[in-house]
């Protein structure tokens, strides 16, 4: 390990600009002539639009124009789509209802966009938006997934009778039913996974700029994947051909999944820029973010887990209803299917699994991937079930898990996944030791003496990162390939630009990716720049989500580096009249192994560009591109332990310790990995204790600001105790697995297992707010 290479705790190259206020986020962008947009949005969860009267609004001060859905449709702008086809178990394709970027005849959730106002100032645009008179015919609304499936429920899309989008299954129903019938014990539980709002601190924003002379569009946007945005806006929404559309995602203030999707606002601002002839900027406020950013989770599941007389799991049966909201967002269909049900084996050898998943339209914001996406839902379900089973069977939670751990790899689960490597017991042991599990009884007694209730809970999670390979996901319905691209561009003086299709919005790629190159070539990290987030600079990319940037994005850089190194070695061998096979790269030099002959890196770079003395037939230059398509998912896993103390007078939960033991394979920068885990755990604790999106019966969002949606704050959280175990991933050149989502996946069940341990019964749903815990304690008495 070098001081700047792989494994080193290098402080971040990008920090100085963020710390000094020089970050450049989308809302920071201004261009000459720029005007401001405000969207007219539906105040109703479900209604027919009978008429839009914009006469008064258009006459307001500062207003440039007001544009509606009919105009958008007339200009041939397409509907928003879901990019992953799922077929129901009867073979019929999912039933996707039309999603007009601006609603034309029907609005289906509070916040559905109806028209855009462009004005000289934000205030004037908003003033005018309020003056638009929309004549609605209100329709009955439904917000809960179970209610939406009930007979007589309001019908949301004509394409999806009964609001059912698909009824999908995975696994072997007959084998599962037989195993349950023959079981020594069956644990049954109903699991609710609460609905969340991702809440990156930077609200979404976009700046659309149309250049009349070039017939060219530029879109600044808060995106995790600008190339996918360009692809989708070109291929499906008819905004512009790809060569006429540049998408730039500059500094982006967090995403957590919610900035993967192409939302109506990007499309409309580009179109509005052409219609009005001025650059158009829109920035969401926080309430709009709650109303329109894709939400996460929202599952209702029934679970049966069967055990034999030795406490070995013989089968798992899951029936899940997933709320997808009013429209199918970009990856919404994949989340409760291939990112969820395929992980239901967890860390356990389960011979038979069957999961049935029904997805449902409701009059709520679209639901899509949020940090973890499907895997938190699977982990919460499994680990709550395991905890419940352990209590029912009278064995310790650790023992039940040890009895059922998968211990040899590769391991083929009954639900598609083939786990390549892991050591689940190592993480369990590390976590239990760090948490002093053995000393818990004494700590509980101390708490009781002070009138408090103490509980401890664990969660053994597995997740799948770097969705792949492309051919496999294609066969499962994905509309895109899930590879990554990289270009390593060595300049004539030896400095290096790495162009990547990954996008950093907090993950620190500018540092970790540079560490990889610095380590390989032995050049200073300052001589390496990471370029990302601009379709004009980077050829193509699939972006950052699903903890894929390390495992997939960096693997692409490795492939490009391999090519650069090979060429550099040829040049060096030629310059030193040595054999190419004898050249090694060390400390910024190309050396002839076993001799004192060497040329510095910059000299080889210079030679490649002067081209005065290259091997015969070699092209000048030192720049290579690679695409990397992984052979499999990666499988990070770990064990989390939460210990809580509850104040029975108020129901308040104090997290007295939180321990995480994670196996991410090899680690590039432990400091950054730890930061990812911290953030993930905080979001998991948020889900478990604080956060909950709630609608009233009419579909009004009750939690539309931080006044009612409880975000984790510093004093809600403890400091965390972390450790890493390492079984390197055999599937990629760096042996890395991905760390971005683990914290959010593993932590909620650990918390709820701890709280239910403290209160002495299982009747508790997330979030475990003080009131709910207090109520649970009253029923226990």
């Amino acid at each position: 390990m070098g001081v700047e290479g792989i494994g080193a705790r290098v402080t971040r190259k990008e920090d100085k600009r963020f710390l000094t206020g020089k970050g450049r986020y989308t809302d920071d962008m201004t261009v000459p002539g720029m005007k401001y947009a405000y969207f007219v949005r539906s105040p109703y969860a479900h209604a027919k639009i009978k008429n839009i009267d914009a006469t008064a609004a258009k006459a307001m001060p500062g207003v440039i124009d007001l544009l509606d859905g009919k105009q958008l449709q007339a200009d041939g702008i397409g509907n928003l789509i879901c990019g992953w086809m799922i077929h129901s178990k009867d073979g019929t394709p999912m039933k996707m209802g039309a999603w007009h970027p601006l609603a034309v005849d029907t609005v289906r959730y509070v916040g559905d966009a109806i028209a855009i106002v462009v004005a000289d100032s934000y205030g004037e645009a908003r003033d005018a938006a309020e003056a638009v008179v929309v004549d609605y015919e209100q329709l009955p609304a439904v917000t809960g997934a179970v209610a939406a499936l009930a007979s007589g429920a309001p019908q949301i899309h004509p394409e999806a009778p009964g609001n059912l989008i698909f009824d999908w299954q995975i696994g072997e129903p007959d084998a599962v039913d037989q195993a349950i019938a023959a079981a020594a014990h069956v644990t049954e539980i109903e699991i609710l996974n609460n609905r969340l709002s991702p809440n990156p601190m930077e609200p979404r924003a976009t700046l659309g700029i149309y250049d009349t002379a070039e017939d060219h569009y530029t879109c600044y946007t808060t995106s995790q994947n600008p190339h996918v945005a360009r692809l989708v806006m070109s291929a499906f929404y008819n905004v512009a051909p790809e060569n006429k559309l540049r998408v730039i995602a500059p500094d982006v203030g967090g995403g957590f999944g919610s900035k993967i999707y192409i939302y109506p606002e990007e499309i409309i601002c580009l179109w509005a820029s052409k219609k009005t002839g001025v650059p158009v900027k829109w920035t969401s406020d926080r309430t709009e973010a709650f109303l329109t950013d894709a939400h996460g989770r929202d599952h209702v599941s029934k679970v049966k887990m069967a055990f034999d007389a030795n406490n070995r799991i013989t089968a798992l049966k899951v029936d899940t209803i997933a709320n997808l909201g009013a429209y199918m967002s970009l990856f919404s269909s994949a989340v409760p299917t291939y990112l969820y049900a395929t992980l239901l084996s967890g860390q356990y050898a389960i011979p038979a699994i069957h999961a049935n998943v029904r997805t449902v339209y409701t009059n709520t914001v679209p639901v899509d991937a949020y940090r973890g996406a499907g895997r938190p839902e699977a982990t919460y379900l499994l680990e709550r079930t395991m905890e419940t089973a352990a209590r029912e069977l009278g064995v310790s939670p650790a023992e039940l898990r040890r009895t059922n751990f998968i211990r040899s790899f590769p391991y083929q689960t009954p639900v598609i996944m083939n786990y390549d490597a892991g050591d689940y017991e190592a993480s369990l042991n590390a976590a239990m030791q760090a948490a002093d599990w053995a000393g818990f009884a004494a700590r509980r007694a101390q708490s009781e003496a002070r009138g408090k209730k103490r509980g401890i809970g664990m969660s053994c999670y597995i997740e799948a990162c770097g969705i792949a390979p492309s051919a496999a996901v294609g066969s499962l319905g994905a509309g895109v390939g899930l590879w990554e691209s990289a270009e390593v561009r060595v300049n004539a003086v030896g400095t290096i630009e790495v162009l990547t299709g990954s996008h950093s919005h907090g993950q620190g790629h500018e540092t970790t990716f540079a560490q990889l190159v610095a380590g390989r070539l032995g050049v200073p990290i300052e001589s390496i720049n990471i370029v990302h987030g601009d379709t004009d600079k980077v050829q193509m990319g699939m972006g950052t989500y699903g903890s894929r940037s390390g495992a997939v994005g960096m693997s692409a850089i490795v492939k490009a580096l391999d090519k650069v190194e090979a060429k550099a070695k040829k040049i060096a061998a030629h310059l030193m009249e040595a054999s190419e096979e004898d050249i090694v790269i060390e400390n910024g030099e190309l050396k002839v192994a076993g001799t004192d002959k060497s040329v510095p890196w910059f000299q080889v770079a210079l030679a490649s560009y002067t081209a005065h003395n290259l091997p015969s037939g070699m092209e000048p230059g030192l720049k290579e591109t690679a695409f990397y398509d992984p052979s499999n998912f990666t499988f990070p896993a770990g064990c989390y332990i939460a210990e809580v103390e509850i104040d029975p007078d108020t129901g308040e939960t104090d997290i007295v310790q939180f321990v995480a033991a994670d196996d991410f394979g090899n680690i590039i920068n432990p400091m950054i990995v730890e930061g990812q885990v911290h953030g993930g755990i905080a979001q998991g604790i948020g889900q478990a204790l604080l956060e909950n999106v709630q609608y009233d019966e009419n579909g009004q969002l009750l939690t539309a600001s931080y006044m009612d949606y409880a975000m984790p704050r510093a004093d809600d959280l403890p400091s965390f105790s972390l450790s890493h175990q390492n079984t390197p991933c055999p599937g990629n050149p760096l042996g890395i697995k991905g760390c971005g989502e683990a914290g959010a996946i593993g932590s909620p069940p650990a918390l709820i297992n701890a709280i239910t341990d403290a209160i002495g019964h299982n009747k508790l749903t997330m979030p475990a707010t003080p009131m709910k815990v207090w109520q649970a304690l009253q029923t226990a008495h």
Partner: protein
Amino acid sequence: MTKVTLTVNGRAMSGECEDRTLLVHFIREKLGLTGTHVGCDTTQCGACVIHMDGLSVKSCSILAVQASGSTITTIEGLAGQGELHPVQAAFKEHHGLQCGFCTPGMVMTAVDLINREGGTLTEETVRAGLEGNICRCTGYHNIVKAILAADAEMATGRQAAE
């Protein structure tokens, strides 16, 4: 339009704005200092924290006209050109930031906290002092570490100066 005059980061600045213009928008749009951010509408997230007359305030909940005549420090003015204030340096050293969006408000809050309670801070009082600032990336773990480290560093600096 009303004329607003401020001393910002040591320099006298003025500009015209509507009376309804928030101080944060005046700073971002009229003065071009975009390091101060807006993350919510309800005076809670703290991305907009600046110092006004030496005290931390939420610039999203103050009108520019209200602030007229006052002395403002924004994240851009915390340290000299090219330098880092000890709090900024500690955030870098301890990885107290990820996406960077809440960071200016966090740093300005931390400086104010150390100004008021420096030398006595504990993990608990730092966490309490961050009640008005929301971060979605870091889980606060490294922010707390960074502030405690900066406090210790600045206390050493104060002792050395005495």
